[in-house]
């Protein structure tokens, strides 16, 4: 019965990380626009966020596949080295997102398809979103495994 919940946990962590990445990406764009004398109202922010989330289905699927691979690898690693799930899946989430973002630049000859990752700080922030998703996944597993 427990294993039926695992895909559900995967989806929760994907939605969490994917949404955070989209929010950070949007905020980085809007901060730059503010520096160019554009007026960003709260309504404009929320409309933009809604648009980004609704247009981000393909991106959520990429994050889902990333987590799926990262968490399977982590489960195998944990079989040999049974470290705490929260730590293991946090690291898996962090490096999963980091590698996924870096791979896109390799495929597109250096072009960053998620604009927010172009700076080291941005890349770190987006990878931290992966860490948070992984942490929640590990936490949910811990709570449901007796």
């Amino acid at each position: 019965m427990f294993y039926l919940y695992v895909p559900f946990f995967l989806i929760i962590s994907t939605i969490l990380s994917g949404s955070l990445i989209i929010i950070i990406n949007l905020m980085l764009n809007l901060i730059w626009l503010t520096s160019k004398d554009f007026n960003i109202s709260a309504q404009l922010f929320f409309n933009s966020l809604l648009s980004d989330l609704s247009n981000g289905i393909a991106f959520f699927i990429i994050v889902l596949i990333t987590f799926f691979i990262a968490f399977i690898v982590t489960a195998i690693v944990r079989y040999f080295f049974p470290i705490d799930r929260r730590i293991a899946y946090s690291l898996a989430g962090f490096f999963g997102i980091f590698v996924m973002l870096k791979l896109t630049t390799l495929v597109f000859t250096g072009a960053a398809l998620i604009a927010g990752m172009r700076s080291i700080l941005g890349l770190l922030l987006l990878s931290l979103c992966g860490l948070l998703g992984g942490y929640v996944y590990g936490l949910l597993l811990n709570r449901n495994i007796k």
Partner: protein
Amino acid sequence: MREGNFIFKQMRTLLISFSFILTIFNSLYAEDHHYTIEKIKVDFSNPWSSAFLPNGDILVNELSGKIKLIEAETKKITEIKNVPKVLFKGQGGLSDIILHPNYQINKRIYLSFSYGSKSNNTLRVISAELKDHELIDKKVIFEASPYRKTANHYGTRLLFLEDNSLLITSGDGFNYRELAQELDNHYGKILRVKDDGSVPSDNPFLGVDNALPEIWSLGHRNQQGIARDSKNEIIYSHEHGPRGGDEINIILPGRNYGWPAITYGIDYNGSIISPFTEKDGMEQPIKYWVPSIGPSDMLFYEGQSFPELQGSLLITSLVPGDIRKISFNKFSISEEIIFKEIKGRVRSIKASKEGDLIVLTDGPKGNAYIISK
């Protein structure tokens, strides 16, 4: 037996009638077009641009770094020697080719290409003399600054103005889009230099603090088409938008065309680049496309071969892949797909002095088509 004969005769009559109808239809169709399209019987490796020589021969640039000459009469292909080494990666490689306005006298051609390594490269423009199928006396006349880590969005189109100064389109390098709004770099700009690479004294940002003197206009993305209406002295440029937002702009010196602060497109991942489409001090396109058509080259038709095209912009598109005629009426701009026989991603279109056209299709086995009357 008699029944079999009857069926045979009936089928034969039907076939003859059908082929007769086809012949009539075909002749009507051909008559309607009044032009011929000749496909050069050689594949080109990622053909990117071309130029008609005064004797009718055609030079074709391949992105991989070769220039091939198509002889006008025989259509024989000869490779030009001593072509500069280029970076053939991503969207980079040997790009545009253009003759100097005084080519008849000085035999000089101008080439744009990406130069350097995959992770540290730039847009470079050289001039060279074309002599006996070889480039000699090569001179670097422009190099975009700073170098980039990506192999995308070079722009690279070239256009000579009335005063023999040269416009160079320089793309935003994909990862450096915000720099298109700054004057201290060449990303996302149209640049103007003299034919020897020096800076004209009337460039709009010359003498402005921290501004690079070659800049003619700013706020561009990846401009792969630039053309001049020589009668009215209007410069048109088109640029690729991201997902949607391809634009045609009328280029004026010192103007800001907005990218990425204002745009009609969104990012490839679906996120908003800017929620704004207009702002004071930033120019509006005269036309934009959502969804994108991938505009890849453009010319302003002033030739004699096709009077019906005179005064129109001819634009090639990669997606879905066609040639478009953009006509200007007093209050509107109309768009029509022409030369529909040419299929696939269309990379480039150029015209001879008389007005015959050469069209290149994209890809490792690209083709060249000569359209004439």
